[in-house]
């Protein structure tokens, strides 16, 4: 970091180069995340084509209203996150910080609703394992649906928890004016991560909640 260009690491020629490198690095990480979740989506595709009736039955056990509500909450949190990044970009750190806290609140609402859904599954013995119980045919294959449901939403929820902690750290830094229009790369990277978590849910929601509803 030199005197005349604060926030520019010495191994970069310009702020632009520094930002491009940060963006590229973050996207490289996100691509590994896409493939990480991709394994679960592949397993889902395989079992759903093998047992379509059981997946329909399992999906009908999920609460579509709560799923819908959570989708809206998560997309709203993506909006507040995008606006927070814009705040950092235009040098309004305090505004960015408030928007980031709002993003955390929305993220927490999502997790609380998810918690109630998990609780409901617990009460109805829909947690895969020895105590799993499902009234109806193909109970074993319905259990497979719930294995994938918990693996996919659980991994997604883990990403949300990490995201909320990360956003909290960035909110603190933004409040103390750590981000400038020249260098808000950490804020932008955190935003990319948060939007990625939203992207995963955009696919999870129709695939888990909306099978054969007609």
């Amino acid at each position, binding site marked *: 970091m030199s005197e005349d260009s604060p926030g520019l690491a010495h191994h970069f020629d310009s702020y632009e180069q520094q930002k491009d490198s940060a963006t590229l690095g973050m996207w490289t990480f996100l691509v590994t995340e*896409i493939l990480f979740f991709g394994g679960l989506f592949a397993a889902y595709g395989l079992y759903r084509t093998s047992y379509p009736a059981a997946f329909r039955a399992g999906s009908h056990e999920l609460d579509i209203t709560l799923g819908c509500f959570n989708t809206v909450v998560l997309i*709203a949190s993506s909006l507040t996150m995008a606006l927070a990044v814009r705040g950092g970009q235009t040098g309004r750190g305090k505004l960015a910080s408030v928007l980031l806290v709002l993003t955390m609140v929305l993220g927490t609402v999502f997790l609380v609703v998810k918690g109630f859904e998990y609780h409901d599954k617990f009460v109805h013995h829909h947690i895969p394992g020895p105590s799993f119980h499902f009234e109806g045919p193909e109970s074993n294959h319905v259990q497979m649906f719930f294995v994938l449901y918990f693996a996919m939403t659980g991994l997604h929820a883990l990403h949300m928890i990490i995201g909320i902690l990360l956003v909290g750290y960035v909110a603190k830094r933004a409040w103390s004016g750590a981000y400038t229009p020249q260098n808000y790369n950490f804020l932008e990277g955190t*935003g990319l991560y948060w939007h990625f978590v*939203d992207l995963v849910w955009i696919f999870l*929601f129709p695939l888990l909640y909306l099978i054969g509803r*007609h």
Partner: protein
Amino acid sequence: MSVSSHVQPLKTYFGIFGALMILTALTVGAAFINLGPANNFVALAIAVLKSTLVILYFMHVKGNTKLVPVIILSGVFFLFILFLLLAADYGTRGWLGVPGR
């Protein structure tokens, strides 16, 4: 020492948010209409459209360095290899009649 990225107007963000809300309503609505096998296709098409909007505008890929789309598409490409080879494996297992397959 210039600001490296252009700032998107606020109305872009709110517009994209509105579009995402409408598409969410559409995907739920479409799920309740019997379209036969097309139901899956519609659900996935809307999800792809929604994620494209998020990637282009919320994630600033539009107007960013051109290397970013290359990275993303390479990831999607490898994802398709995963899906394709898995489908080729499981889709053809019954053809040979090997015991235990």
